């Protein structure tokens, strides 16, 4: 059994259902990519994994989140809370606002060790410095005593990652960890995270809208569209032979070296609004291959080779 197995996860906020029927699984030493446009439900899924849906007035309406054999949706919320920081950690999107501005960054990392490892002040600080070194933060000792506003975005994000690792978690959920950073820094952070996974045997759920990051870092990927899974499978397979038109289009959006100007193709149309999510295939309005079936029913997630696709007319298969 994988460390984390999610089945049929459906999330509701008020009278809306932004996420429906999501399956995913990730094991130690693996990187699972969760990719989709803004509004596709990726961040909500991350919050669900962390048990933080109540913060945004959301709740798990159905489905299961099984971590290390225990279904967290079936237990009191306090259990999930006790896992947070200690066995499941979060890396958030915007380092500029994720850190407490009136405490030193060092204290914020120390706090995790003291909370979950029972260390005293000195040992916690030593541990934090070691972590900061691992994060390739230069002059860790000096940085430890600094405040967030005195550090760059890339540096702050390394601090956030250090904070996530301080509890020695088994699973890290990273919600768009590089989106708010400079392009040059993005690659560094991604590489850092991948190295951590290999070195420590972590499980990493990497949420992003950038297929380039997925190609670079992930072992398997889940493609979300408008709250539902469009396609999921191993990265090599998905990239070599995408079956869902959306996945195909997403891959086509990655700029390549030597690409001629004016040839970057976007996806025509817009994501449907949460307010009127149709019951049928949500990608149909933007799909070149859409037929009458597509606008009357929702496609089920079927296996094609090593991947699973939710599409009535998947590419690369006999229609």
């Amino acid at each position, binding site marked *: 059994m994988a460390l984390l197995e999610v089945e049929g996860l459906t999330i509701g906020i008020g009278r809306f259902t932004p996420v429906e029927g999501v399956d995913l699984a990730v094991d130690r030493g693996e990187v699972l990519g969760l990719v989709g446009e803004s509004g596709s439900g990726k961040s909500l899924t991350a919050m669900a994994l962390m048990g*933080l849906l109540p*913060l945004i007035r959301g709740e798990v309406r159905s489905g299961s989140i099984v971590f290390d054999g225990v279904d967290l949706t079936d237990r009191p919320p306090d259990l999930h809370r006790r896992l*947070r920081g200690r066995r499941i950690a979060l890396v958030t999107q915007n380092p500029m606002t994720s850190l407490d501005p*009136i405490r030193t960054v060092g204290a914020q990392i120390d706090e995790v060790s003291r*909370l979950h490892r029972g260390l005293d002040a000195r040992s916690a600080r030593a541990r934090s410095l070691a972590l900061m070194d691992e994060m390739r933060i230069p002059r860790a000792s000096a940085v430890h005593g600094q405040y967030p*506003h005195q550090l760059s975005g890339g540096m702050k994000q390394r601090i956030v990652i250090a904070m996530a690792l301080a509890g020695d978690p088994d699973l890290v959920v990273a919600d768009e960890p590089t989106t708010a950073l400079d392009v040059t820094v993005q690659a560094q952070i991604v590489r850092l995270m991948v190295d951590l996974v290999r070195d420590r045997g972590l499980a990493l759920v990497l949420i992003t809208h950038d297929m380039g990051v997925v190609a670079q870092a992930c072992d398997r990927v889940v493609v979300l569209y408008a709250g539902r899974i469009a396609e999921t499978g191993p990265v090599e397979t998905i990239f070599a032979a995408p079956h869902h038109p959306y996945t195909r289009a997403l891959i086509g959006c990655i700029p390549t070296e030597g690409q001629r100007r004016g040839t970057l193709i976007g996806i025509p149309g817009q994501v449907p609004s949460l307010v009127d999510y149709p019951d049928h295939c949500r990608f149909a309005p933007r799909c070149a291959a859409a037929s009458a079936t597509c606008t009357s029913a929702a496609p089920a997630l079927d296996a094609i080779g090593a991947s699973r696709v939710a599409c009535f007319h998947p590419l690369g298969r006999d229609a």
Partner: protein
Amino acid sequence: MFGYFVRRLVMLLPVFLAMSAIVFLIVHFVPGDPIDHMLQIGSSAERRAELAAKYGLDRPIVVQYLLWLKAALGGDLGEAIVLKQPVLDLILANLPYSLALGLSALAFSTVVGVTVGSIAAYFAGSWFDRSVMAGILMGSMLPSFWLGLLLILVFAVQLGLFPVSGARTWDALVLPVLTIGIGGVALIARVTRAAFVEVAQQDFVTLLHAKGMTRGRIFFRHLVRHALMPVVTILGLKVGWILGGAVTVEFVFARPGLGSLLITSLGQRDYPVVQGCLLMLGMGVMLGTLLGDLAQAAMDPRVRDRMS
């Protein structure tokens, strides 16, 4: 920190000069000869000449102001017309009472206000939150001296629990502090609650939850420091308000203090005392503002760096 302190002091200097200049000019704006406003009617010609020379009344107004200021800063605030004592003595005799009242009111407002505000914020939206905040709000809109009188009527006259007036015993502080305090509690509770509600929505709070802390710990170990910052700011800004409230309340409760002294002297046209009191109160306001700024800088590292 020290650099910040010095910078703030320098910025306050022009305000101090302007405030003291206006206080100084009072005797010059009042119709009549300034000397008449400093002396009892029928004082000897020598006395008049003495004062005229001391305050340089034949010299340019700026020089007069500087002479007056120099004397004042050295402790010489002139002599009271009615009581015939050095003004400084009168002020020093009354100052402890005003300080006791002001500081107690400050402490009361802050402690009760922050407590009420944080609990209201923790239970934001509940009936407790709404009724408490509404009640406090109503209380703050009432004129403070009326509130004081009502408290005297109920607790001192009818129930006999506290002294009606004066400052002879410790419990004489209770009703006056309560009178000033209600307005203060209302303000601080509102600011505290709003600060909590606002900070609870910030991104870093998500990470705090992600670290696995309980809501209570997040609120009362982490967010409190954030919520206190606007409180400190507001306290610094409203020190003047507390002083003003103290002035009123001293009069209502017939307590000795700078406020009573000021009001009585105004009625008696005892200008040296009026000027002395106004100068002290003005300086008190400025000192309070400065302390508020320093406290804020101590709590928020961003403020310290901002002013360079």
